[in-house]
């Protein structure tokens, strides 16, 4: 059903988009406006989340700030959710997506994915020890909480056939897990790691029982028309720079994410070249 809604919305947006499509170069447009508009997450700690003053902070926000600084313009952030970030980008409401977006072949048909990718995560579940999960197949037919729009939902759903209970945001899903509405929460393994290491006694009897699967690259998104235009090229250069200079590794550390093998490798590779 959700897919159906997206299909209809996609078609509507395609119609609207043809009116709004501008041939103007995106960099020129951003500079003329004096502001770059970036779609970010504000509900995905520590990549993008709120502080009590209402400001959005996090690792991805610093990347967005880097881009604004490079272009010499102001940064405007629009909070997006998985269900609307690609639509906003193609509508032109935002210039760039830095919002924990998984780089999938399907999405590449809709938006331009900037390479090299700035992060990679893998999939695992958070579950009470009492659930006694040993392997992914144990999830079959059981209720598993998940978050709307996460790239791994479909894959896990097809491979292991759990009964997915999908929530709009992470806190809702975590609450449902603690309330016993599901036996596990399907999530990014680095985030499960930080949740468990956070010291909340409520998670004392929980674990990450499975072997992480499906390493998934995350990408900054630009419009397809921008990917090979100056704007897309600039983003690629910046991305290489972030890897080479160790900026991404430093940010990861700063925001308390466990150092990911992907970033270490990419850093070595880009420094070597």
């Amino acid at each position, binding site marked *: 059903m959700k897919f159906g809604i997206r299909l209809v919305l996609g078609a*509507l947006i395609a119609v609207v988009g043809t009116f*709004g499509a501008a041939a103007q170069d995106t960099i020129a447009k951003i500079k003329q406006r004096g502001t770059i508009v970036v779609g970010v997450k504000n509900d*995905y700690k520590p990549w993008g989340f709120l502080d009590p003053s209402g400001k959005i902070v996090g690792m991805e926000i610093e990347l967005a700030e880097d881009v604004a600084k490079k272009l010499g313009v102001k940064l405007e952030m629009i909070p997006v959710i998985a269900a609307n970030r690609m639509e906003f980008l193609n509508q032109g*409401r935002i210039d760039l997506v830095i919002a924990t977006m998984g780089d999938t072949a399907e999405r590449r048909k809709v938006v331009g994915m900037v390479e090299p990718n700035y992060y990679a995560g893998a999939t695992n579940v958070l579950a009470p020890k009492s659930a006694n999960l040993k392997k992914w197949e144990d999830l079959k037919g059981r209720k598993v909480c998940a978050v709307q729009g996460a790239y791994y939902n479909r894959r896990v759903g097809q491979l292991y056939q759990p009964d997915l209970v999908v929530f709009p945001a992470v*806190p809702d899903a975590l609450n449902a897990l603690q309330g016993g509405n599901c036996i596990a929460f399907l999530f990014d393994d680095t985030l499960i790691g930080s949740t468990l290491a*956070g010291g909340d006694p409520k998670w004392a009897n929980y674990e990450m029982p499975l072997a992480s699967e499906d390493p998934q690259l995350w990408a900054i998104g630009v419009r397809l028309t921008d990917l090979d235009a100056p704007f897309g090229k600039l983003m690629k250069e910046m991305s290489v720079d972030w890897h080479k200079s160790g900026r991404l590794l430093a940010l990861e550390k700063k925001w308390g994410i466990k150092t990911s093998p992907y970033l270490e490798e990419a850093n070595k590779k880009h420094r070597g070249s």
Partner: protein
Amino acid sequence: MSALAVLLPRQPAAVGSEWGAARMPSALRSRKTIAALAILGAVWTAAAWAAAPVDRPSVLALAVKWAPLIFGGFLFNLLVSVAAMALGTAAGVLLGLAQISLLRPVQAASWAVTQFFRNAPWLVLLFFAMFLLPFEWRIGGVTVPFPAWLKAMLGLALPVLANVSEIVRGGVLSIPLGQWESAESLAFSRRQILWRIILPQAVKRMIPPWMNLYAILTMATTLISVVGIQDAMTLTRGALVAEARTDLYLPLYFMLLLMFFAYCYPIARYTQVLERRFAVRG
């Protein structure tokens, strides 16, 4: 007592003394409801307080820390509700009058529009408004931005418009036919009858359902969080993400609930008062 109780419209004890029992016979019931809610909130907060470990900030401290931001979001919800109501009412009154037009096509068209928007889910209308309208208009050489909250407001105004249209039609039809007939016998024109005789009587009857609609709309404004607008609901969720504390989940949503309750409950009470005052006797 507790900080949560401060969010209530007034101290439970003050309600009875300020609103005389003669003017508002049901003040007692109202006082009980508010008191019950205050007690529930206090018990809950105390329980959460007791459960919080010593080395981490208490739930109450966290709620206080995030309250200003969430309250700011709540004011935004109110702004959207007032704007959507104003727009919906203006358009809805015209549509409602068109529904009682003697011109067959006008009546049929306005009836169709009313039925369409009245029987469509609010969230779906909101989706259409969000994704069909452009994010900016180009008028001449000037680009005028069309912000998301404005679109959301339009999206919410659609069901309001249809409901107001029905309220107007129903209000006019509720006036006994004798009023029309006697006015006609006094040689008033149709327009004169409507404006001078029927509508002044009908408006009184329209106000209570109209206020009900407003209270429902205000609570429905949290729907805009689904289409990615930073309203009180989204900000509450944002606070929950930032704190990553599962014991904060229900207390924070309860705080949000209290804000809406404190605003909508008096409206509901006053609506009932008006209903009684305008009740048709005999």
